[in-house]
């Protein structure tokens, strides 16, 4: 395949997955450990004493390091993606993120991209996510045996522009061309939509590790048209864990007189117990804490499901508002929802299912929410479907098309600090708006524009996206210049801006300075291979493997004339082997892995009869002179002796 496969990636708060379209069905690609879920945990290994390159561990291994060396490990970094220092203060109280303390002069810039301290090194959130993405990329490459360079990555539907941009940056750092960002609930709908009724209105309720989304879609003839979306990018299973942890820590302090908070390792042990208890309470009526404390005491406590449900009710209740707003924006009532799809690990909690049932009046209408697909995997499967749509490679996806919306209104700051909305939330993307600006003072040559995202009336209450200056306006009387500015939200939900002065026909220069986020140059400098190029890149690795394979088969051909079977070949057959051998030897000198593999196959074909003769000889010796056919009858169908020259399997 010329262009390679496009994979679908669910970059989750807690776990991440990679999937692809295997023929007509999406399939999750397991890691080397055979597991589908890669925990979104990143650890910095101890720096080698000999001054070697530092290495990074991702996934289950990194999670194990969490207890031993919590100061070198980070998780739930998705909560920090695309956010400025000022915005993440709340998260810092709840999560053990260690921010690097820069010895910079002057007050810190509230919009600066935070840096996380891992051991001796510091990383931005997109870099941490890039390590997770690189792991998934490697898992896929290992699985396919070929390079993977293009991906579809999912994001929470309610992610704003900066959070989306940060996710795209992470992809680029990991060496992936991000063909599309897809909203997680919409991806889930795609996964379900493959074999489902072609028409109807569906609601996707997605409560993940750290984010909540609700999307309402209309399905018709393979077109998935999102009607509305709403959510909370900081609400999820993490919040439930934090509640349990806070209670345990409080009780341990009260009963055992130990304040665990200064001991990150001990807090992680409590966190692990809290998560286990939460999971257990989805199927059992009761769970218990039994944690060994640093002083040797044990903290024991029983948690009945009833108590758990009372505790988490305020968290779950926070999902009701977004659901109601999404219904209102779609202009429909709960009774008009034909189907509800549950996504995200947190939807395994019975109280969540009850809430969904109440919100959409399911039981009352004799309906049940869809949970047939694994809620942890369904988003990745949908991402693979979208990857299939983009690659245009599958018959199943040929007729499918996703029409998504922008979750937040786009506006510009007007006089008095109010917001003039130019693109309403829930507009189908790509969407655009053209605005005209002029000057207020004679001879004015630039105009400042402040773009914000959000639903509030005042610009200061919305999320600042970018400020730009329209420069190079020809000096004219006030009000005479007419600058046309085009705002376009692309299919990834990311804003693009262009401007033109219409009276003089000059292109007005714009310098878009994103309020949050990394510059292009910064992203460039963070591309993982430039930091950590200790590993040969994939093409090189493939070439080395192909050459090894070639060397093995050439050595075997070299020894062939010594074998008795060789004499049974015709002269013609021997010539063919010699030609194929020389061809491979020549190809080996070149740098084309694909060509080498092809030459190996040609030689393999040319030596097939010789191989059969050798095998027959070997078998008849072993079983005492029977013919090959007779021998195979004796042994049933199990005979499967390998080609004596078969290339070794490369993993």
């Amino acid at each position, binding site marked *: 395949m010329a*262009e390679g496969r496009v994979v679908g990636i669910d970059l989750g708060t807690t776990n991440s997955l990679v999937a692809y379209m295997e023929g007509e069905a999406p399939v999750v690609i397991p890691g080397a450990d055979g597991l589908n879920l890669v925990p979104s945990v990143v650890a910095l290994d101890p720096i080698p004493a000999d001054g070697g390159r530092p290495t990074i561990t991702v996934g289950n291994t990194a999670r194990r390091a969490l207890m031993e060396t919590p100061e070198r490990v980070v998780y739930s970094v998705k909560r920090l993606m695309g956010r400025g220092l000022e915005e993440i203060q709340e998260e810092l109280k709840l999560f053990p993120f260690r921010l690097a303390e820069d010895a910079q002069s002057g007050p810190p810039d509230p919009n600066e991209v935070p840096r996380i301290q891992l051991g001796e090194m510091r990383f931005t959130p997109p870099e941490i996510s890039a390590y997770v993405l690189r792991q998934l990329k490697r898992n896929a490459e290992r699985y396919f045996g070929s390079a993977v360079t293009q991906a579809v990555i999912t994001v929470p539907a309610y992610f704003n522009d900066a959070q989306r941009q940060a996710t795209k940056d992470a992809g680029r750092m990991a060496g992936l061309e991000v*063909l*599309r960002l897809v909203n997680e609930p919409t991806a889930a709908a795609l996964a379900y939509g493959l074999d489902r009724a072609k028409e109807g209105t569906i609601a996707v309720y997605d409560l993940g590790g750290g984010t909540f989304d609700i999307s309402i879609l209309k399905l*018709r*003839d393979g*077109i998935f048209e999102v009607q509305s979306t709403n959510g909370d990018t900081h609400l999820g299973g993490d919040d439930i864990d934090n509640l349990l942890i806070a209670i345990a820590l409080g009780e341990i302090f009260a009963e055992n007189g130990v304040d665990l908070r200064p001991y990150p390792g001990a807090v992680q042990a409590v966190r692990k117990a809290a998560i286990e208890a939460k999971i257990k309470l989805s199927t059992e009526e009761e769970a218990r804490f039994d944690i060994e404390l640093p002083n040797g005491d044990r903290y024991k406590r029983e948690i009945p499901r009833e108590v758990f449900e009372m505790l988490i009710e305020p968290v779950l209740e926070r999902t009701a508002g977004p659901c109601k707003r999404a219904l209102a924006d779609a202009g429909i009532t709960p009774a008009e929802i034909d189907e509800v799809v549950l996504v995200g690990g947190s939807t395994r909690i019975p109280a969540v299912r009850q809430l969904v049932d109440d919100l959409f009046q399911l039981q009352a209408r004799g309906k049940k929410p869809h949970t047939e697909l694994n809620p942890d995997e369904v988003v990745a499967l949908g991402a693979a479907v*979208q990857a299939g*749509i*983009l*690659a*245009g490679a599958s018959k199943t996806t040929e007729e499918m*098309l*996703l*029409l998504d919306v922008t979750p937040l209104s786009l506006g*510009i*700051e*007007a*006089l*008095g*600090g*109010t917001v*003039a909305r*130019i693109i309403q939330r829930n*507009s*189908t*993307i*790509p*969407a*655009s*708006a053209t*605005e*005209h*600006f*002029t*000057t*207020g*003072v004679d001879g*004015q040559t*630039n*105009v*400042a*524009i*402040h773009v914000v995202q959000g639903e509030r009336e005042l610009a200061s209450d919305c999320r600042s996206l970018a400020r730009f200056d329209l420069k190079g306006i020809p000096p004219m009387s006030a*009000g005479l210049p*007419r600058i046309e500015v085009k705002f*376009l*939200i*692309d*299919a990834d939900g990311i804003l693009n801006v262009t401007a033109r002065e219409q009276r003089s026909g000059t292109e007005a220069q714009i310098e878009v300075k994103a309020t949050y986020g990394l510059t292009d140059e910064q992203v460039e400098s963070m591309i993982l291979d430039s930091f950590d190029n200790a590993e040969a890149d994939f093409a090189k690795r493939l070439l080395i493997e192909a050459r090894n394979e070639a060397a093995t088969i050439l050595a075997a051909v070299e020894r062939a004339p010594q074998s008795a079977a060789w004499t049974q070949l015709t002269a013609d057959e021997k010539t063919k082997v010699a030609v194929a051998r020389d061809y491979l030897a020549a190809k080996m000198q070149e740098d084309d892995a694909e060509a080498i593999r092809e030459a190996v196959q040609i030689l393999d074909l040319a030596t097939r009869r010789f191989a059969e003769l050798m095998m027959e000889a070997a078998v008849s010796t072993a079983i005492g002179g029977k013919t090959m056919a007779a021998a195979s009858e004796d042994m049933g169908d199990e005979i499967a002796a390998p080609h004596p020259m078969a290339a070794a399997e490369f993993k």
Partner: protein
Amino acid sequence: MLNVLNDAVPVACWSCSIGHNDSTLFCPHCSKIQPPPGGDYFSVFNLEPRLNLDLKALEQEFHRLSRKLHPDRFARALENEKQWSLADTALLNDAYRTLKDPLRRTEYLLKLLGNGVTEEHNHTDSAGGASKDTSRVPADLLEEAFELNMQLEEMRFARKSGAEDPELLASLEDAKKKFTALLEAVDRDLRVCWTAWDGGDAAARQAQQKKMVALLDRRRYLSNLVRDVNEVMGA
């Protein structure tokens, strides 16, 4: 006027070089995607400007064009085709969003015909500014609207201090009913205008346009009032 807008400038297709009408999304000869055409939102759907539209047919056409234009179909195409797919789809989506909603459709048509409120943002150096809609109070509603606003203030105050005044609540309920009914009347009048405009000659259309501008103003004012009442009553 409309003919001027729709006047097609022949341009050459970037791919096959054969000249075609400017208001086309695809080259009629080689079917390749073209840069965004210059026409209005109606022409995107190959429609004459009209105020009564068959929404079902509009949706079908929207889906048909989406399938052909969407950036998902051009993920591995040439860079310029990708850009045009993005721009064309944005135009298609903007057009569909505007035309499927009868009020937005009416506002758009009026603006197209020069009857709309011109929106130009006056910007000074320090702060940008976009015109906020400042709807005039219709003369016949002046008194009632004033009274309603007073009652709303009272209610807000009562809500804050935790006191409930059943009499006030009942009178607000009445006002809400009354203004909702007025809103419905405006919508009925608008529908009459649409049909008259669609079927009218140039002079008749001019008259309808004037009417519609006034009706839209009145509607904006009424719907703001109803929204305020709903907000205060904690709907």
